[in-house]
């Protein structure tokens, strides 16, 4: 019974809660017990928030009792360590922010609290969301619930693993180059990155401001869609946020791919390093979609090869500036014994930042330096424009783009840590969506050698409803649904 409660969808849980068959407190307790049993192995969470889950579950039960339950009343949720929650230690997976308790809550989180969600804890991630395996966490690596010797992907690995292991019903992540979709694929859950500007970034500790977006993890497309719809929309605190339409949550009868044209970019299909098992799973998914009535069309994204290079200029450039505030003067780690301010900066940052963060700060500082700006940053921005144009052209021939989310399944812990370039290649199929600001989702599409494979669906700007429609049709037609990993 307890395990059943941790395998519910939002829709089922909401029904049971409203019927009075279960209480929010029971739902939370079931998840906490599962966390106590599994998380010592998975290590999805960095810290727990018992005061919050108790008060929020009580509040949910009270509102349900009064018949005023908001849509997510009582739904257990995990939050990535890059989203500020008032009074809760938030560190972006970094030692430099150890002990930092923000005096405010990120807009996205506040909206889900408003909708009744119950926060269980803060999930692990790569330091400042820089990484694809959660091994760059300043605390400890998270493990893949399907194989504890493998990574969960990253940077939102903790959130993906928590949902996969039944340690949360939904979770929040952030996606700068694939940091929601790739771990969702590797952990066998649904993960969605919305259009840039769909969700307010206020309270999201920035990695690369022009690429970052907040999005949900869930075990079904519907759950992801509901969660996204509740946190989306214009926020006066984020000048890049928008109220554009295109997020109509599908009603249960709607949503078929019949008559839709789904583009398969040949550069993604034959991407270098794609594992045969991943390609086989993708082929099977395309077969299912075609059987469901979709027309599969060949499209091209000719500048794909340059995307990775452009991304690894733009993201580090922005991060080098965004991370300048971590100087030990106002909050976080401070090496106060330094003889002067420059040494204080250097000692604090050397001690507080991990290797990958320091590498990217240096890369970005170099790319923005006078004399190099035109050759690096400006050129990367031009490539970004070309990549956007590639997608514009492709969407003239198709309604949505489908591909594998990651070229590989979850890889063994430690296998790529010595080779940053091989780690960067994990994002080759996802980062185009960030450079172009497009909505994208990863849904489970079978396994390869017993490990989950993800199917990525990308839509045009503000075309979340298209993406969700394809993803749900596939979910329905394939009868593949995210399962809760049994772990041990």
């Amino acid at each position, binding site marked *: 019974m307890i395990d059943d409660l941790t395998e519910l969808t939002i829709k089922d849980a909401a029904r049971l809660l409203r019927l009075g068959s279960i209480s929010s407190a029971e739902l939370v307790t079931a998840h906490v017990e599962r966390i106590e049993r599994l998380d010592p192995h998975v290590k999805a969470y960095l810290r727990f928030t018992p005061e919050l889950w108790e008060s929020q579950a009580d509040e949910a039960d009270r509102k349900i009792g009064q018949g005023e339950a908001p849509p997510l009343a009582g739904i257990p949720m995990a939050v990535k360590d890059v989203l500020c929650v008032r009074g809760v230690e938030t560190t972006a997976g970094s030692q430099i922010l150890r002990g930092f308790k923000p005096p405010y809550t990120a807009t996205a989180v506040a909206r889900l609290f408003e909708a009744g969600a119950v926060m269980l804890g803060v999930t692990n991630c790569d330091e400042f969301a820089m990484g694809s395996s959660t091994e760059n966490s300043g605390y400890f690596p998270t493990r893949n619930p399907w194989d504890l010797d493998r990574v969960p992907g990253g940077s939102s690995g903790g959130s993906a693993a928590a949902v996969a292991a039944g340690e949360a019903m939904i979770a929040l992540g952030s996606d700068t180059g694939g940091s929601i979709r790739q771990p969702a694929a590797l952990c066998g859950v649904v993960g969605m990155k919305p259009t840039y500007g769909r969700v307010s970034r206020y309270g999201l500790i920035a990695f690369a*401001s022009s690429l970052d977006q907040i999005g949900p993890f869930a075990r079904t497309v519907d759950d992801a869609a509901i969660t996204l719809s509740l946190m989306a929309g214009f926020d006066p605190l984020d000048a890049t946020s928008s109220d554009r339409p295109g997020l109509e949550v599908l009603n249960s009868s709607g949503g078929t791919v019949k008559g839709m044209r789904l583009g398969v970019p040949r550069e993604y299909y034959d991407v270098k390093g794609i594992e045969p098992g991943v390609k086989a799973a993708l082929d099977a998914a395309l077969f299912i979609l075609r059987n469901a009535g979709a027309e599969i069309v060949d499209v091209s994204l000719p500048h794909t090869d340059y995307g990775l290079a452009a991304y690894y200029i733009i993201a580090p450039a922005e991060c*080098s500036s965004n991370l300048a505030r971590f100087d030990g003067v106002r909050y976080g780690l401070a090496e106060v014994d330094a003889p002067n301010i420059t040494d204080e900066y250097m000692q604090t940052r050397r001690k507080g930042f991990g290797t990958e963060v320091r590498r990217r700060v240096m890369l970005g500082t170099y790319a923005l330096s006078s004399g190099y700006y035109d050759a690096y940053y400006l050129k990367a921005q031009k490539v970004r424009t070309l990549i956007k144009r590639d997608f514009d052209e492709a969407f003239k021939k198709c309604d949505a783009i489908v591909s594998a989310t990651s070229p590989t399944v979850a890889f063994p812990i430690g296998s790529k840590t010595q080779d940053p370039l091989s780690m960067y290649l994990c994002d080759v199929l996802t980062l185009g969506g960030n450079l172009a600001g497009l909505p994208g989702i990863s849904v489970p599409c079978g396994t390869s050698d017993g490990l989950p494979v993800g199917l990525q669906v990308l839509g045009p700007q503000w075309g979340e409803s298209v993406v969700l429609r394809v993803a749900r049709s596939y979910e329905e037609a394939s009868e593949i649904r995210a399962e809760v990993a049994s772990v041990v």
Partner: protein
Amino acid sequence: MEVHVQPKTRTKMFCGCAVAPLNAPPNTYVCEICLGLPGTLPVANKAAVEACLKTALALNCEIPRHTKFDRKNYMYPDLPKGYQISQYDLPMSVSGHVEVATRKVRIRRVHLEEDTGKLVHAGDKLHKAWESYVDLNRAGVPLMEIVSEPDLRSADEARDYATELRTLLRAIGASEAEMEKGQMRVEPNISIRRAASDELGVKTELKNINSFRALHRAILFEVERQTQVLESGGRVVQETRGWSEAEQRTFSQRSKEFAEDYRYFPEPDLPPLEVERTWIDELRRNLPELPSVRRARLLDHLPAAQVAVIGADRELADLYENAVARGAPALPTANWIVNEVAPTGKLSPPENLAELMKLLHDGAITRDSAREVYVESVETGRTPAEIVAEHGYAQVSDESELRVLAEAVIDANPKAAADYRNGKKQAMQALMADLRKRAPHANPKVANELLLKLLA
């Protein structure tokens, strides 16, 4: 010249904090955004953008359709984010000009940025300080930077340019532009050249200038210093120099031989601004008359000395013109404003000033009474006529009444009367003084004539 001006806004440039009053306790006008806490984002202040656009229009600048904010990256404890949001290659406005006396000074650009906080060092000098404190009240306060082309040729012109900017900014309501309150900071760049040459010499930039007078003196000093350096065979070093008010000299602060690399790039947290033409047109339409135009009009019926005072302040000029429009006599009203209003800053409604000036002009009250009436009218808001009636300030001009008074004065001052009769004309002053003491509201002209007649 680089001039930083704080536009008149209720809140800071990118957050909802009120702009701190002068001498507010440290770190009391701050929030998570201007403290640069992780996860916070800037949102541009529309009032600041509008003030900048108005300033640009008043300075005859071009306003491009597209403008954007950029990050200027450098680390310093008074800069909470590790970068300052400023404008680099697409400023809010470019290519303007302003007339200063007979010279047309070209304006290179006017752009918007945010101020930094300030450091307070314990101990006497920075390098000896053993503790430094950070006050972020100023962090994020909006600033407009007005950059002129190298068109100013002397300390006088630089001072006149700065005063003209202040007058203009106050006239259009873009800023209070009070130097003492830190709302306006001027940084002249000084270079000298040989009389025959067109090529400008190496420049130095002067900082810490707190008044128009300091600006003038600092430039004179710096010109003299550079002249001496060159004449003694030396070389002027490109650097930032501070002005020491105490020592009345400039001193080297920071060499600019190796330019700092600020790694400017577009601020990704703020979408580029598309300045709508309809907004510009509306601002242009609603721009008040510019000081140069108004001065030209005032010069048609007032002497230059009065125009220099009245034309330099929008409130004074408004008071003058509105009072005259209500029937106040022009020159006496101008003199009143120059002598009685400008030094005290006590502004009365124009209809009250007009009424007072008419009372004075018609001889109904004395000048001394008028001063008292004016102050009371400003403080209570009552009309001069009411106050005059209540206090009995009305001037006594009745001859029979004054004749009794004059006789009494002569009786009471036999020595002065005798002196006068013996040809000591200045003795009349003592007699008049006694008369005014006995009857403050006596019409001095009529009383004087009576005394002369009685002593003849």
